[in-house]
């Protein structure tokens, strides 16, 4: 561990962190070595990120978004958030747990004052700590890349004085946590790669890489990009290892296997673990239940589970059921009918059958109840013993409240004229016979004789006469249909479409033959008991799938921006404005650092390309080792920037400036790396080097001055006057708010 000290140029950094067992012989001595510079930097990091984080005592920007999930965690209520995997929310919720938050706060408005039961300090503590600890990680990362401690110091100072990173760390937001994990993952991989193959720490670093990668992906999907970059790097290193013919096949096999387990299998298991904890914590039903399948909902306490508890499992003739469409697009809904007929003529002049409307209705309602009837018999009660309905059976469906049969015929549907109209049959005596026989086709059957089951069976209802399939068309009916969703018979139904599949959600055996009694029965809640459990994997797959496919609203936000605005920081986000004064907090970077970062990136590309082409012509400007070092720094820093930035160009979701912060972190690290390279290998003349020293000092001081100038907008304190605010508006496109008194 301590070998790094030998080439320490800085006299102040005395010794290393970490411990070393000097020998096995007694007495056991632990020699601690501490890098004072690192300690000082960490302290500065903690100070800059943690200082006064309980201010402002109001909801700041996306806290309003994450806060609701934290509250739900505290209340153990199930939710779906499509923005990312659960680890990030859980970490924030852990802060709330330490602070003893009871979850009672209404997160509805940015700028709303926190009530006294909200532990603001501990809610913001964990992101702030993550942000602080990223500071020393930057230092270690640059050192691990093989650059000098002075360079590392420079990188860390730039990182320290980056206003945007400070702002993002000081509130209950996830980016700082993500950046922390990303840096830790890279550092531990580099440690692993640089350490001696015999060192026992090597395996620890490898495992830590896997763990932190999983955490990064678990906090935000975005972590995946850096994870893939590291995997790519690991693959290249492994390929080099395989090419080493001095090693035996078995040694290589062991190496390959270890890396595969640590970098692929371990993160996968951990990712599953996050969901396991998530689902274990959240066992109560809540506002997002309806997005999930009936079976999933039944596994939650309260909600559907309360309703469906004790329902009979097997469908029988005479069963009273509600049929839910398996597709939750556009919204989850139940097959419905009501006492209103299709208009004789539609607006566009087409005619209808004028029979009773059948729709899909997104709310629980007594009109959602249907009775399964045997076409061959008259009775509407379940016989004893019940006769189960199986796959392939032909049934009639009777609407409970109006006693109309579910019917479809060769009349064009109101909104989707290519499909058949579905109606509750009324005999107008106009030679339009009833066509109300439906074949039960269980889509997820295991045997051909399978019984139709509550919740579990996904059923297609195939019309016997026309072989049309009962299906949700996706369009909504106009005013005459009360804007409910259209249900049609689809003649050209093919494959598996969730819109054409239904499941029974509520179910009970019908007991009364009389219409009046039956209506009473329909109004009463269901009862009886059976237990249904989904396995964890089934729940995980369903939840993950829903999270990835939930339709995100791509509407524009007042502060949303496009990726092109980010590099030059043409945009900012107003996070908070004092409700009376001009004190305000903005997500706004240090413009000097951002420009330096862009310059460094261009400089790096220029250097890289010229070396690459000249080396191809066997002109060696720099020694092989330096070239490798430059290459590795490029992969980590420039590559880290690219993978965290470029994919946003292909995304269609609403984007904000804070999405750029991980990319920015890597870009900042590149600045001193390029400078050191230029200093040692490009500039030959001492006077040029002196000029560079001067430029570096000037750059650092202007970074510091900019940081200081914008710090009122970073910390929200002190309050500035309108003129001062106006003088901070360096770009026309920045939105700086001020109140005119």
């Amino acid at each position, binding site marked *: 561990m301590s070998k790094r000290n030998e080439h320490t140029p800085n006299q102040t950094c005395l010794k290393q962190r970490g411990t070393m067992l000097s020998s096995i012989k007694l007495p056991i001595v632990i020699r601690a070595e501490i890098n004072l510079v690192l300690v000082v930097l960490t302290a500065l990091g903690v100070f800059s990120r943690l200082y006064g984080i309980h201010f402002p005592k109001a909801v700041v920007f996306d806290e309003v978004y994450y806060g609701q999930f934290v509250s739900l965690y505290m209340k153990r209520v199930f939710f779906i958030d499509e923005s990312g995997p659960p680890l990030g929310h859980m970490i924030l919720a852990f802060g709330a747990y330490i602070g003893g938050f009871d979850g009672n706060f209404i997160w509805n408005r940015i700028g709303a004052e926190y009530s006294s039961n909200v532990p603001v300090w501990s809610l913001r503590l964990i992101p702030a700590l993550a942000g602080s600890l990223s500071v020393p990680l930057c230092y270690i990362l640059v050192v691990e890349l093989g650059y000098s401690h002075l360079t590392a110091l420079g990188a860390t100072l730039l990182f320290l004085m980056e206003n945007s990173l400070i702002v993002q760390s000081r509130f209950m937001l996830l980016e700082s946590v993500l950046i922390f994990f990303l840096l830790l993952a890279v550092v531990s991989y580099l440690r692993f790669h640089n350490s001696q193959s015999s060192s026992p720490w090597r395996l620890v670093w490898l495992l830590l890489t896997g763990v932190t990668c999983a955490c990064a992906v678990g906090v935000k999907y975005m972590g995946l990009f850096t994870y893939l970059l590291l995997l790519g790097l690991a693959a290249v290193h492994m390929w080099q290892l395989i090419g080493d013919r001095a090693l035996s096949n078995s040694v290589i096999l062991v190496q390959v296997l270890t890396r595969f387990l640590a970098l692929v299998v371990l993160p996968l298991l951990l990712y599953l673990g996050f969901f396991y904890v998530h689902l274990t914590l959240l066992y109560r039903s809540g506002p997002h239940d309806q997005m999930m399948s009936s079976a999933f909902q039944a596994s939650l306490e309260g909600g559907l589970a309360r309703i469906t508890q004790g329902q009979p499992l097997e469908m029988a003739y005479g069963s009273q059921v509600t049929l839910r469409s398996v597709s939750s697009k556009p919204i989850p809904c139940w097959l419905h009918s009501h006492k209103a007929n299709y208009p004789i003529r539609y607006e566009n002049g087409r005619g209808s059958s004028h029979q009773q409307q059948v729709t899909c209705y997104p709310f629980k309602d007594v009109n959602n109840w249907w009775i399964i009837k045997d076409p061959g018999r008259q009775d509407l009660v379940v016989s004893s013993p019940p006769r189960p309905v199986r796959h392939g059976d032909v049934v009639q469906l009777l609407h409970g409240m109006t006693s109309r049969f579910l019917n479809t015929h060769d009349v064009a549907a109101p909104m989707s004229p290519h499909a058949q109209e579905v109606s509750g049959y009324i005999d107008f005596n106009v030679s339009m016979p009833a066509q109300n026989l439906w074949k039960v086709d269980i889509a997820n059957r295991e045997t051909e004789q399978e019984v139709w089951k509550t919740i579990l069976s996904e059923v297609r209802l195939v019309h016997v006469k026309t072989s049309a399939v009962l299906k949700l068309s996706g369009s909504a009916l106009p005013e005459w249909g009360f804007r409910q969703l259209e249900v049609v018979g689809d003649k050209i139904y093919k*494959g598996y479409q969730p819109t054409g599949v239904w499941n029974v959600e509520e179910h009970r055996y019908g007991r009364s033959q009389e219409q009046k009694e039956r209506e009473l029965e329909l109004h009463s809640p269901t009862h009886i008991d059976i237990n249904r459990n989904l396995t964890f994997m089934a729940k995980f797959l369903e939840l993950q799938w829903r999270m990835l496919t939930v339709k995100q609203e791509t509407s524009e936000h007042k502060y949303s921006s496009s990726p092109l605005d980010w590099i030059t920081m043409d945009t900012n986000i107003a996070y908070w404005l004092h409700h009376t004064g001009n004190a305000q907090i903005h997500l706004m970077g240090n413009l000097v650092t951002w420009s330096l970062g862009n310059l460094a990136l261009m400089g790096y590309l220029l250097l890289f390309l010229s070396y690459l082409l000249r080396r*191809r012509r066997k002109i060696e400007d720099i020694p092989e080792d330096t070239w490798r070092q430059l290459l590795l720094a490029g992969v980590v820093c420039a590559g880290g920037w690219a993978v965290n930035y470029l994919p946003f160009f292909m995304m269609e979701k609403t984007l904000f400036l804070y999405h750029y912060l991980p990319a920015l972190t890597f870009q900042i690290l590149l600045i001193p790396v390029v400078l050191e390279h230029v200093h040692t290998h490009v500039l030959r003349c001492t006077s040029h080097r002196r000029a560079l020293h001067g430029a570096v000092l000037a750059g650092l001081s202007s970074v510091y001055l900019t940081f200081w100038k914008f710090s009122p907008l970073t910390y929200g304190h002190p309050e500035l006057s309108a003129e001062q605010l106006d003088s901070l508006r360096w770009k026309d496109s920045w939105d700086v708010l001020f109140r005119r008194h």
Partner: protein
Amino acid sequence: MAKKECVTKCKGESSMLRNRRGELQIGEPKSPVSTHHESTQDSSKDNRLSEGDDQSSNGTLAQYDHNVYSPNNETQSTVYFLVVVLLSFSTRFYKIKEPPHVCWDETHFGKMGSYYINRTFFFDVHPPLGKMLIGLAGYMTGYDGTYPFLKPGDKYEHHNYWGMRGFCASLGSCLPPFAYLTVLDLSQSSTAALISAAMLVFDTGCITISQYILLDPILMFFIMGSVLCMVKFNLQISRPFSAPWWLWLVLTGVNLSGALGVKFVGLFVILLVGLNTTWDLWRLLGDLDLSLVDFGKHFLSRVFGLIILPLFFYVTIFAVHFVVLNKSGPGDGFFSSAFQSRLIGNNLHNASMPEYLAYGSTITVKNLRIAGGYLHSHWHLYPEGVGAKQQQVTAYLHKDYNNLWLVHRPNDSNGEPDLVRHGDVIRLEHKETTRNLHSHRHEAPLTKKHFQVTGYGINGTGDPNDLWQVEVCGGRKGDLIKVLRSKVRFLHRATGCVLNSSGKTLPKWGWEQVEVTCSPYLKETPNSQWSIEDHINTKLPNISLAVLKPHFIEILLESHIVMIRGNSGLKPKDNEMNSKPWHWPVNYQGLRFSGVNETEYRVYLLGNPVIWWLNLLSLGLYLVMVAAASLALHRGVQLDKRRIERCRVLREGGGLLLLGWLLHYVPFYTMGRILYYHHYFPAMLFSSMLTGITLDTLLQSADLVLDPPYSYWLFKGGKAMLFLTILYSFYLFNPLSYGMRGPLAHDPASTMAGLKWMDSWEF
């Protein structure tokens, strides 16, 4: 692993001892990529040798090796080639006239071919070359351009449609021969080439897509042409700057411009050629025997042949397009006023109208953004939750009477024909619905930072929010507003925002027209500048106006932006079943070309499932094989020359084809536009060629598990089995292309009964 390698090695050595030709090859110093010239010599030698062997046929093992490993026999490959050409043309031209009605997208591309014959201007999201060639083919074969191509299923009657179909079919027939030649050059194995060609010849999908008036056969012709020329060019490596070297270079360039000229999908093959060329140059740069001057020559000649020349051809295509289409037609509204003035019959061609905007005039207002629409309103309200529930105001690309607006003074509705001046406050009344152009502090539907623009009031009476101040860009107070020429901005009096068209497409409730907003950002951008296009005022004299004739480069740029906008505007509809990219390689679902019901003549575009699934399998197999080969080479396992050569073919030839497949397939995952099954066909060509190389290498590697005589039998037997399977599957599935009648496949009485292997197929 280790054990297997050892076996290989030992066997390799023993077979070398037995094999004279093996020694011969070792003896010959050869560059890693054998040149065409050399290989011909080589093969003639092999020929002689193997003939000799045949004569002295005494059952020695060497003979098997010869037949297996010297398949690059010239007469044999010529015969194979001719067979491929013959089969290819006959399968594509068989029943070319059937069905005698419009099938699927013929309704578009046939129509566009007719537009060329009639010289009518139209708009399409694809570049013009494909449609131009269709038009030309129709013209040459006597089609007069009068058939309307209204909708699929319309009978052609007496119209001459077979010329256009035949043209497409003949280009489509070139694909298998091209594949044959490409694979032959990549692998030096006629077996591999024959497998690839057979996969394409007997693929029902390739046949169907080649038989109709579509862009795809033309596109694929150019794609395959580029690849073939590129491969041929690569073979000229040892003879730079010779005549054939230049020929193949230039031909590659020409084909590239052709591919891009038909559809933007051509970009992918350009990328493939670009990567190949970069790799080539990288190799040359590393060759220290080559001076930098020579390298410069190499570099510049490629820049000329692969960038400048194609660009020139591509631009020429557009020049021809604009020269041929000089009459006004359905595409006018998509283009700027200046562009429209070029078209005979357009109201802006030799336009004549009052020169300065006046009160009481009826006008259309066009946004100055490229492909910006006309200010438009209609009898529909913004839906609940989208700002105020007032009448929609949008931008619309087509010419329509709903684009007409009346210019009024703030108060009276029928003023004198006084001229409007810079700085005047006006009211714009929508002619059809008599609502005023109105804005207020509500969020715009899509661009939330802007304000909503609506139609408000009845019969011209509204409120102060209906007032707009007219400004001419760069003008001063009192300046007149010139029709067509002046760039005008409309500033909202009450909120100070400026009328703006964001270019975003509204959802269904807005009829997928373009959003119009009022922007609080006053920077002058084309989005917030408008021009007065039509100007009708009976009280003023009409004056002949010369509209600025646009420069050719401007037209070119404009038409490209319009095309790209059009392409990204093709969004999938919510409740339609969309084809997804993962469907394609598994042959999940085809496309109905003609007919739905039992009584109709049905043609269904679906790949021969046996061939497609074989392709899918081979992709996996290829990855495994190439990984094994690379590992063996990287670990320094001793392999004999032949096996090394096979590894090279697998890695270089196969790698090129895999790259082609990836480039033509993966980008579709990132596309937001609506996708169709037939988008996979270019990728399928690469996949089939890769299959040829993979399966050939696999069969040739039979000696890894079996001793020579048996391995040879396995090779032959496997080859025969493969061809028989392909043929039999073609026998089974050919009605998909050549037409089916009678009951659908789920009916036991159908001719296709039992062949509906996947529920998602619709035949």
